[in-house]
């Protein structure tokens, strides 16, 4: 990723622009519906999916409740296996640690395994400031990096691009970063993958430092686990002389055995596969390779302190919620202004970053509360519950506050409601076809319903419930 999301306008404004992009909507619809259907079919194969989901939830909740214990256990196990553990309270500290580690090797470039945590802390930008180039090696991340673009999906960062756009990016940008794409490049997926393979292969063989994240950390053994589809991650994890893994503290699982649950939940929920092609695990340093683990908090303990909001920390970054979300499908990932888009982003970003900016305050409202995300979530995060919870913590605009207070007053006594209804009925012919202010958002595309001559309560009173 290049650049930063800072200073972006609110979600409604970003989304209003995005829905006008018909190419984007076509790409997103096609991609999300494909993954959505695949997920449904492989989840449906497992008779014990509901139990697995509950087990996943329970293991994560247990771990979060005893996070302090398991983190220390993890540190001890990694250290015992020859690795070095670093603690980072926030993004700046994590970036400082990683930059320092890379500088100590004397190298000026690193290869990267796809990682959400390093995007969250904007590591690539921090490295660039110190003259270190980070090369993304995940195919989709490569597309985003070459295109000087932002990721728009957790699992498929370039989901907003179709293959002819990718061909253009490869042709015009690969040469700036390394081995150029062949001039005869077509938009066949096989040809695009081959161009990326040749471009990256050169990189893997020449780079001595790698940076990764991890899907899971096992406290009992000190093992890190990465699930991927391409094998590029494994290249990064095994070839370089120094491996630095940057991992959020909530990625812990207590025991090796717990993986059994998550290796079933994650691939089926994310790519819609029974099993992903490459699962790599490593414990500490191996011969000829130095290993560093950077444990990142960056707002997570603050989330943990919130009784309702903390369930967001169960997230295993599968992105099933994105793929079923009707809002994400129309607005696209960039509108969320965060590396975590979609429903999970709408509850995670405002908790991690706080609700200081207009954008972050608007995120809990980026949902119709339809509940599709909760049903799809493999660790049963009740996203609508957290959205409503965060809305109650958000600062509201003055006009809205007054309107809501007035509505609350009217609903406070049945007599007030009846009088308001009668007033509406009396002036019902005067209601304009286009409403003013924010309410115009309704009448731009929809008629407002006709106000009836009489409310139900007045009808009931007048006719004794229809008996007169």
């Amino acid at each position, binding site marked *: 990723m290049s650049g930063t999301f800072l200073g972006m306008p609110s979600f409604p404004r970003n989304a*209003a622009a995005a829905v006008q992009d018909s190419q984007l909507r076509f790409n997103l619809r096609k991609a999300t519906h494909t993954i959505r259907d695949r997920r449904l079919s492989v989840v449906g194969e497992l008779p014990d999916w509901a139990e697995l989901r509950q087990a996943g939830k329970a293991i994560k909740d247990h771990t979060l409740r005893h996070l302090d214990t398991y983190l220390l256990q993890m540190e001890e196990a990694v250290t015992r296996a020859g690795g070095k553990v670093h603690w980072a309270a926030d993004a700046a500290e994590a970036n400082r640690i990683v930059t320092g580690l890379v500088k100590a090797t004397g190298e000026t470039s690193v290869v990267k395994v796809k990682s959400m945590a390093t995007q969250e802390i904007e590591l690539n930008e921090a490295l660039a400031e110190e003259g270190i180039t980070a090369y993304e090696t995940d195919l989709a991340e490569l597309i985003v990096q070459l295109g000087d673009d932002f990721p728009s999906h957790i699992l498929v960062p370039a989901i907003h691009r179709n293959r002819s756009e990718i061909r253009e990016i490869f042709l015009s940008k690969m040469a700036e970063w390394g081995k150029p794409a062949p001039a005869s490049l077509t938009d066949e997926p096989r040809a695009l993958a081959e161009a990326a393979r040749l471009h990256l292969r050169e990189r893997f063989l020449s780079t001595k430092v790698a940076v990764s994240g991890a899907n899971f950390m096992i406290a009992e053994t000190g093992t890190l686990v990465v699930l991927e589809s391409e094998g590029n991650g494994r290249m990064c994890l095994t070839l370089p002389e120094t491996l630095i893994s940057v991992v959020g503290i909530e990625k812990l699982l207590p025991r090796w055995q717990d993986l059994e649950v998550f290796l079933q939940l994650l691939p089926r929920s994310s790519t819609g596969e029974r099993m992903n092609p490459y699962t790599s695990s490593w414990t500490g340093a191996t011969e000829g390779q130095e290993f560093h683990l950077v444990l990142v908090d960056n707002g997570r303990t603050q989330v943990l302190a919130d009784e309702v909001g903390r369930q967001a920390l169960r997230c295993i970054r599968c992105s099933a919620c994105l793929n079923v979300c009707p809002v994400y499908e129309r607005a696209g990932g960039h509108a969320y202004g965060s590396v975590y888009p979609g429903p999970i982003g709408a509850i995670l970003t405002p908790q991690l970053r706080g609700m200081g900016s207009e954008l972050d305050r608007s995120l809990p409202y980026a949902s*119709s*509360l*339809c509940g599709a995300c909760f*049903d799809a979530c493999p660790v049963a995060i009740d996203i609508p519950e957290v959205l409503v919870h965060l809305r109650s913590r958000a600062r509201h605009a003055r006009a809205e506050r007054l309107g*809501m207070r007035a509505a609350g007053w009217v609903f406070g006594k049945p007599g007030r409601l009846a009088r308001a209804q009668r007033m509406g009925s009396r002036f019902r012919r005067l209601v304009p076809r286009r409403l003013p202010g924010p309410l115009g958002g309704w009448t731009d595309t929809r008629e407002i*319903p006709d106000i009836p001559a009489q409310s139900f*309560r007045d009808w009931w009173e007048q006719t004794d419930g*229809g008996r007169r």
Partner: protein
Amino acid sequence: MRVALFITCVNDTLFPGTGQAVVSLLRRLGCEVEFPAAQTCCGQMHVNTGYRAEGVRLAEHFVDVFAGYDAVVAPSGSCAAMVREQYPRLVHAARSSGPRVPSGLAGAVAEMTPKVHDLSEFLVDVLGVTDVGAYFPHRVTYHPTCHSLRGLRVGDRPTRLLSQVRGLELVPLRGAEECCGFGGTFAVKNAAVSSAMCADKVRNVMDTGAEVLCAADNSCLMHIGGALKRQRTGVRIMHLAEILAATEEVR
């Protein structure tokens, strides 16, 4: 059995015909329904927009009004889900942070919630009927609203009821389980996305060739219907209660 009608503020104010249909339908099935006139609003708009304190006050009022009844029937999946799913959470959350919560509210809510039913649940589960003796000779498609589907989990109860209606041809709706984009204040706060969602719903409704779009929530119908009308599609919206109340005699 004392049955109360929880009309909901939207139906009370904008769709009185739906309430009248519920009354005539339940009477036809031998069930006398009372209308507690002190009722106002369940507080869903306030709570879901982030105004918890007002929500708690309205919840308190709601449980006061409906306390003495054996069953509370609402012609709205969304408002029934508000009471059944959200009230317990609301009280819990309000207690641990923020607004003043009267003692005894948690108990009153716990007692209240199992008695609250959406219309289709009340007909199928409490009265035990799926054939309500209705007659409606039209081509109808059904939109299962999100809160009925994923909140209350009413499942196929509404379509079981509709499939027993004489003369009615029920045509399946593509992408039926997808949200129409209403979402309360979402429709105004995120009007662009809401309208885009609605546009897809309208296209799917048009593809069915139905004369009538039916749902168990007038708020969603108001949203889809508003677009159907703006586009002059000629497709009518009708609440489930209105179709079930229609008979050969009353046409």
